[in-house]
């Protein structure tokens, strides 16, 4: 039996953010994650938006944590060498009669402390967003909205050294347990007799557009929010490909992440109303994710009925943005309930070196680097120009599957969808992790890529 001070169930953005915050202190911490890699649950399919916090009631926990998380993310992105770009968001309206609602959203957002909000008119929009539907009459502009590179990736970087533990059926003992199990948080809580919330998966389908449309919009463009979601939007991503979506459909199945014809139709119809230029032919990839929804707000509390047990549940959107703030709140709850926090003096590894991509640096530097390490000149993924060196680095940083490599390096995520580079990426993975090729998977056990290897 292994003893810990804090056990965290779930290694998504929430769990890993909490772990990182706790690793500032002299504590024994463990994350228990059922998937092959960290952030392969809900966190795998987010849009990469660091929301400013608009469209949340001022009294809500998620509103407050989102505003705080937006600020904290900037700092953490710097520490971990991840690109963060402040692009701003626009919530657009088509009719004068929607103006009162827009002003109300502005007022609520101001109450939450969101900076530099303003209403912009048609003239401003024509200048800054030429591709918007000309029928749009005004928008609420929130400049603090941001996007970050490598969506889904920030959480994976939150924790420095992780030691993998593959021993089956171990018993972990701890004074404190944090339930950050995403879609399964209700089932985990039920195990200790807490039954007052249920998690409903709310599906969001997203569609990625061709990089050629990189200049489609300059901001994140939202329609006026509806009761079930913030609406289907046009998302600027730092990789260039615009993204459209997500839908918001409640379902029962916690595993069904399929996309549907109806979903695609709905997304297209909605975004074409905002940016008429978008067409079905622009779509190059698509996926769906499930938001863990329980009522309208996050549930973050110490369960007094079960001392030492903390629920962090219902972390729907904007969970990615709020994660660093959620972590601070959880640490506070732990302290209030008796966890002694003694700061480490030397051993908190706050910084992480940014990843190296040959084509994101000046030519002279790239030349010098390829000379120094030939593997930089060995391109594996020709669409996104990812080198063998970058792939090996990604594996050293924790990638164990093809998806893990894809999310870290973009290898296989370009125009050819892995047509050219899959075999090479598989071979590098098998070599680095000393496993047979037949055990290389897309995203964990059961998703093996090939059935047999006949070459000795």
């Amino acid at each position, binding site marked *: 039996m292994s003893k810990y001070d804090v056990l965290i169930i779930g290694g998504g953005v929430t769990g890993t953010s909490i772990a990182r915050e706790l690793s500032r202190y002299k504590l024994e911490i463990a994350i228990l994650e059922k998937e092959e890699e960290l952030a392969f649950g809900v966190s795998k399919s987010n849009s990469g938006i660091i929301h400013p916090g608009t469209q949340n009631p001022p009294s809500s926990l998620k509103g407050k944590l989102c505003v705080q998380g937006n600020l904290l993310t900037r700092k953490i992105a710097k520490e971990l060498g991840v690109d963060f770009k402040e692009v701003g968001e626009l919530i657009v309206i088509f009719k004068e009669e929607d103006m009162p609602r827009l002003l109300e959203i502005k007022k609520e957002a101001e109450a939450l402390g969101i900076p530099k909000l303003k209403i912009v008119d048609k003239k401003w929009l024509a200048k800054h967003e030429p591709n918007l539907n000309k029928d749009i009459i005004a928008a609420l502009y929130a400049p603090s909205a941001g996007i970050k590179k490598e969506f889904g990736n920030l959480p994976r970087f939150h924790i420095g050294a992780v030691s993998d533990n593959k021993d089956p059926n171990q018993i972990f003992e701890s004074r404190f347990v944090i339930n950050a199990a995403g879609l399964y948080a209700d089932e985990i809580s039920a195990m200790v007799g807490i039954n007052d919330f249920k998690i409903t998966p709310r599906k969001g389908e997203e569609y990625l557009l061709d990089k050629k449309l990189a200049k489609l919009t300059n901001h994140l463009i939202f329609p006026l929010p509806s009761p079930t979601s913030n609406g289907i939007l046009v998302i600027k991503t730092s990789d260039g490909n615009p993204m459209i979506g997500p839908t918001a459909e409640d379902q029962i199945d916690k595993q069904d992440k399929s996309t549907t014809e109806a979903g695609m139709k709905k997304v297209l119809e909605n975004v074409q109303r905002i940016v008429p230029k978008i067409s079905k032919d622009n779509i190059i990839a698509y996926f769906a994710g499930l938001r863990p929804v329980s009522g309208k707000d996050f549930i973050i509390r110490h369960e007094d009925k079960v001392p030492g047990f903390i629920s962090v549940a219902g972390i729907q959107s904007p969970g990615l943005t709020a994660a660093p703030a959620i972590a601070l709140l959880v640490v506070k709850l732990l302290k209030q309930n008796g966890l002694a926090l003694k700061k480490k003096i030397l051993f908190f590894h706050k910084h992480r070196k940014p990843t190296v991509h040959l084509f994101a640096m000046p*030519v002279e530097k790239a030349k010098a680097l390829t000379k120094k390490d*030939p593997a930089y000149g060995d391109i594996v993924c020709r669409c996104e120009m990812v080198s063998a060196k970058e792939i090996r680095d990604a594996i050293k940083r924790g990638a164990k599957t093809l998806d893990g490599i894809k999310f870290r390096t973009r290898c296989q995520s370009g125009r050819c969808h892995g047509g050219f580079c899959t075999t090479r990426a598989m071979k590098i993975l098998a070599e680095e992790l000393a496993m047979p090729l037949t055990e290389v998977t897309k*995203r964990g056990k059961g998703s093996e890529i090939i059935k047999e290897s006949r070459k000795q």
Partner: protein
Amino acid sequence: MIKRELIVVGGGPAGMAAALSAYENGVKDILLLERDQFLGGILNQCIHTGFGLQHFKEDLTGPEFADRLIIKIKAIKADKAIEVSLQSFVVKLTDRKVVTYLKPGKFEEVQAKAIIMATGCRERTREMIPIPGDRPAGIFSAGLAQKMINIEGWLPGKEVVIIGSGDIGLIMARRFTLEGAKVKAVVEIQKESRGLVRNIVQCVQDFDIPLYFRHKIKRIIGHDRVEKVEVVAVDENLNEKPETAFDITCDTVLVSVGLIPENELIEMAGAEIEDLNTTSIPGIFSCGNSYKVYDLADSVTRDSEKAGKQAAEYLKRI
């Protein structure tokens, strides 16, 4: 910066034929850049016969066809007349004809007086059709599966459904069958195949593989690995007939729905493809499958020889 007369990008049949013909037409300073470790391009993975009937008047496999060209290139003894640089991946082309390429340990920029782009094509993907449903392991483009079987010696799947009845799809139906896998269906949305009659007979009918015309894959289902596909018949206007829907269980879906010329470098230089082998920038040419998608390697070779001549003539003119 290093200067050359002619740079050919791509060492498939198109690039090799263009380089050889440029040489025969008087160009004596040619740099041939190929990304892969070998010359031959996609031919290396096409181990079936049917190549060369027109060009060499012989029935050859893909690698044999490539070999004929490789031998000719190797036979040229004059220094640098055709210099082949392998593992050399071109990442940039400018309108001033500067080519940037990477090879292990090297990051080079070379300027040429003329350039022939022969970068081939890539395959259309599931995402481009687009087929809704799950995104499990077990979905491959036909060319990727061909590479896995013929080059790597791997078997990607055991129960296969193939989307598209073009030549590549048909050939892969036979290839999987010969490897001991079961091809459960070839599904084609059109009313007939674009492929050669000989391939329909020899690759599908001879093995009793069901070929469904006017049918489409409506959905791919499977959590970790492909489990089944939903198939539905369509009418002449390609509208679905919902009452006809049925499932086929399988562990693999092969997507063979066409090819697209790889023209990103030409676009990067700001050029556009024009008439046979030419682009809007004088002195930058494009041939083979990067110019347009050809059915046969023979026709690629024939037209690419013209490109070599066109480049030689251009170099004499300037």
